[in-house]
């Protein structure tokens, strides 16, 4: 096409007319696109997901998110693809999936530690750009704790970075230590505390910042069975007390049914995405021997069974 970028002598009237028309047409196209854009629709490969403008819709909206990890060996690794899900304010959303399916990748993208290679993640209607204190994170291991700070100093960290005065931040940190049941030993260092206590510090450290939502990456996976059950009860209590939105990652069906108000089940990786989402209407009564609990357990188990088999087959 000759035109804008050629430096030849100006042409006649007809050509000028073409330029005017082309501008009008492009204006039309742009305005048309912006109408579509108000719904923030994304159509790709026949999969359609729509995130409406906040606050009409959910707190968090993943639409067609894809994450490719560049591999040094040459073949790129597509961790998740067409990942779409919405998280409502105030809910306890459990993302359940077999190991290696990209659950943690999803959390890292929502936390802002990593960026999607395609698609978008909206929080309160705005795209997620980098980490921020409106999304508190609780990590699986204890390597995120600041080993040189005592329990209460760890909890204070966020407040200290914001420049809140010592007396006030100590008082607020102590309140959250009490909430997580660690009031007794605020001066101990992480190395002196048990695994369960360290996770409590992490939870208090995230909550003291009063985040819009709490992201938890298999926080109890490294704990022994009894401590884990206790921590699940504690977390359910904390959630009921604060009503902070929780995005909780787990590979444990029992844990998901115990804690979640909704459970998203993921396909086996690579190219993982959400297989289905299940509402858990247990109204807080999470008795593991209850018939309703078992019914949900079975339902989730059916959804995930094949995926686990697939993921194991791929590993072999």
């Amino acid at each position: 096409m000759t035109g804008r970028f050629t430096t030849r002598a100006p042409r006649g009237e007809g050509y000028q007319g073409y330029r005017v028309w082309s501008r009008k047409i492009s204006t039309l196209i742009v305005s048309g696109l912006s109408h579509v854009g108000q719904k923030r629709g994304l159509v790709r490969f026949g999969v359609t997901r729509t995130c409406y403008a906040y606050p009409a819709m959910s707190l968090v909206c993943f639409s067609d998110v894809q994450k490719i990890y560049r591999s040094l060996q040459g073949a790129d690794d597509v961790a998740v693809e067409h990942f779409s899900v919405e998280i409502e304010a105030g809910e306890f959303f459990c993302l359940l999936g077999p190991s290696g399916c990209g659950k943690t990748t999803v959390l890292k993208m929502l936390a802002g530690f990593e960026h999607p290679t395609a698609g978008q993640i909206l929080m309160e209607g705005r795209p997620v750009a980098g980490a921020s204190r409106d999304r508190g994170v609780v990590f699986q291991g204890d390597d995120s704790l600041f080993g040189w700070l005592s329990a209460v100093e760890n909890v204070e960290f966020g407040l200290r970075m914001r420049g809140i005065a010592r007396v006030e931040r100590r008082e607020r940190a102590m309140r959250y230590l009490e909430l997580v049941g660690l009031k007794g030993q605020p001066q101990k260092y992480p190395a002196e505390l048990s695994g369960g206590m360290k996770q409590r510090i992490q939870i208090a450290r995230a909550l003291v910042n009063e985040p819009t939502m709490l992201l938890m990456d298999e926080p109890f996976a490294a704990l022994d069975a009894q401590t884990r059950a206790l921590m699940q009860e504690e977390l359910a209590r904390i959630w009921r007390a604060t009503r902070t939105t929780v995005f909780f990652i787990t590979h444990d069906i029992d844990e998901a049914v115990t804690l979640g108000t909704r459970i998203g089940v993921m396909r086996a990786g690579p190219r993982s995405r959400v297989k289905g989402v299940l509402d858990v209407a247990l109204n807080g009564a999470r008795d593991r021997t209850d018939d309703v609990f078992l019914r949900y357990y079975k339902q989730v188990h059916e959804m995930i069974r094949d995926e686990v088999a697939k993921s194991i087959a791929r590993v072999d």
Partner: protein
Amino acid sequence: MPRRLWSLYGGYALGFVSLFVLWHLASVYLVSSVLFPPPVVVFRKGVVLVRNGVLFEHLWASVQRILAGFIAGSLLGIPIGLAMGSFRPVRKVLEPYTEFLRFIPAVAMITVAVIWFGIGEASKIFLIIYTTIFIVILNTAAGVSAIAPNKIRAAQALGATRAQIFVHVALPATVPYILTGMRLAMGNSFTTIVAAELIAANEGLGKMLWDGRMFMLVDDIFVSLVCLGLLGFAVDRMFRWSIYTFAGKYSPAT
């Protein structure tokens, strides 16, 4: 309390006593030569040298040089190491320097140092800086890259800025590595200062050794050797203690 003291230092005391007993046995019954004096003779000579102030003069000269060079080398090395560990371009640019120069031992640089700075204090301090700086840089940079990524992520999610993460996370997490680097550098400083003083100096423990050889003052040589050993041991304990105190808390892993 005495029991506690015994459990803490009893082993050391026993070790030292056995060292002197072995030395005594070896010099009196095995060698029995004036060239290998027993510890009692060395101790007496040491008392004489302390009384007339000669020992202190030499000791202080060496300690002063070590301290000046060691502190200057650490103060230069720590920020360079931090920068190399934190920023890849800085690492790329500076690595040729560190990787090239750290294989040239400070002892080999004595000649150059004497030519450049003469036989005064400047050449000694230059050599100690030289022997300190690369070890401190390497350990500091290694410490920065050993920080658990989740620590940085946690700080980000708690709202810390880049500068705050550097000051409040990267720096404290690197402290044990910095101290380890300084501890190793201190050991090297002892080697270097003695070598430098052997070749060109007016006082210092190395000079004392050299004079001892020249005038066949074997006892003086041994006093100087014992001083070096004790001094090194004391300084190293100090570093180990501070690493232990900090590392309990400042461990980068937990």
